[in-house]
């Protein structure tokens, strides 16, 4: 084992200190007895009670979850299908054109993606002489659009790693192409699909910039609600809410890590048993 240098011990602590300083401040002030987010006046849980009484914030939270779930599912299904298709395209230029188009939402600044979709929606509604088209549907469409590239780019590498001979073998052994897909290919690319799904969900929950341009007044998500609140003065109830979300994520991550560690352990044990037999 190499001896670790002092630098490699201290440096991460410094960077993590930088990354977590504002979060610590945020959590601290969520317990503030006073109304300020700058001067700490004593410990209190009043803002946590306040969160559950603020109907507009709860409504925004509900919208955020609905849009995230719906858009993540749509983008994962469509994106996985697209990745399989892209992997099979024989026309080189067509494959390249599809991949380039897929990259556009990732390379374009969010603000440009947001306004480009807003302009499309506004233009179409003007064609039909309607107003106020921006809402839940446009928000979901926009979220699916910016999530799709991440799903595709998570699934494609897994598809490239799968052995086509396996699905050929399955078909030689009497599987239909569809059966061989579900029994052979799908399990192999599942990790990619799942990480794509997770990423899509996370991006959707966290997105502010694109949502800001394509959501109407009726479909506020949490980031948009927070934005409109930070235009005035933020009261610590926003901090309380994000502390709760932060803790929920932390718990979920720890649990999922423990589960994977356990299952890996199990596999390891099984593997060694088989090896021994």
């Amino acid at each position, binding site marked *: 084992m190499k001896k670790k240098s002092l630098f490699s011990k201290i440096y991460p602590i410094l960077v993590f200190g930088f990354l977590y300083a504002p979060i610590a401040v945020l959590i601290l002030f969520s317990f503030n007895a006073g109304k300020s987010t700058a001067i700490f006046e004593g410990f209190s849980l009043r803002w946590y009670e306040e969160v559950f009484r603020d109907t507009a914030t709860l409504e925004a939270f509900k919208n955020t979850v609905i849009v995230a779930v719906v858009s993540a599912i749509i983008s994962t299904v469509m994106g996985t299908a697209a990745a399989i298709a892209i992997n099979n395209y024989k026309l080189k230029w067509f494959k390249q054109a599809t991949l380039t188009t897929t990259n556009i939402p990732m390379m374009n600044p969010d*603000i440009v993606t947001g306004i480009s979709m807003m302009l499309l929606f506004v233009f179409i509604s003007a064609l039909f002489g309607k107003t106020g088209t921006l809402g839940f549907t446009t928000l979901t469409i926009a979220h699916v659009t910016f999530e799709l590239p991440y799903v595709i780019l998570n699934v494609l590498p897994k598809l490239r790693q799968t052995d086509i001979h396996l699905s050929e073998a399955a078909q030689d052994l009497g599987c239909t192409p569809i059966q061989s897909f579900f029994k052979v290919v799908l399990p192999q690319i599942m990790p990619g699909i799942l990480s794509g799904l997770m990423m899509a969900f996370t991006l959707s929950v966290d997105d502010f910039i694109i949502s800001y341009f394509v959501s109407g007044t009726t479909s506020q998500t949490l*980031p948009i609600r927070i934005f409109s609140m930070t235009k005035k003065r933020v009261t610590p109830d926003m901090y309380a809410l994000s502390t709760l979300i932060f803790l929920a994520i932390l718990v979920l*991550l720890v649990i999922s890590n423990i589960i994977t560690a356990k299952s890996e352990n199990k596999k390891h044990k099984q593997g060694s048993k088989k090896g021994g037999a």
Partner: protein
Amino acid sequence: MGKKSTLLSRLIGAPYIVWAVIFILVPIGMVAYYAFTDVTGAFTFSNMSEIAKYTDTFLLSIWLGLLATVISLIIAYPLAYIIANSGENRQKIMMMLIMLPMWMNFLLRTYSWMTILEDNGFLTTTLNSVSEEIWGILNEALHSFGKELKPFEPIHLINTRGAVVLGMVYNFLPYMILPIYTVILKMDRSLIEAAQDLGCNKFQVFKNITVPLSLPGVVSGFTMVFVPSVSTFYISQKLGGTGTTLIGDIIETQFQTANNFHLGASLSFVLMILIFICLAVMNKFSDEDGEVII
């Protein structure tokens, strides 16, 4: 696979292709359309010529964005290197710690910096009292030589360009760490061993093997930090002051308050072109696949 199944597997991509055309390509066409038309829908160059007024804003955005990106790279590279060379468990925990802040709303994390950087906040007052002390000592020392310093001026952190750059670095640093970490981790260790066997010292190994091989990660991180930095509007509004209006702020105003979609579209159009030029240049340095590492 049989002929039928490959045909089927190509056809299931159709919904995505249709979606991508309608919601990726057409909207970009829309930006161009609005950029070159006026309210009546007639073709015009007036929006484009109006952009000249915003040259300074463009330059400032690019300058602050570049600064934030370079600082992020300087902070991220050593960390990514350290993490990639740690034990497996430590790696997992540290990567989780890097991803975790991204789950906290970006607006609130930025807002929280306002608390930290405020004029009567803890950081500013401490910095000010410490530097005033040092200033005094210096002054006294100089006094014996018959010279004197200017009177002490309190430091301002909030509402400065520095604060905006800090906000950018803070928010987008993980996007620099992740790709660099990934490439260093995937690097072929036998190359490093070979270099050592051939007599390279640690620094030579780093310079001749690690740096060139990690270049794709650096390029990827560079774009992933530069693009959101150059186009941001929230960070500059919250942490910046009157002298830090960025191009994102101007675009946001056109769409949300000024309702001048045509000017907003032409600004976005130019921003988009600028960024695609940057990306094309960056990709020249990257691997030939042109794939983005995530």
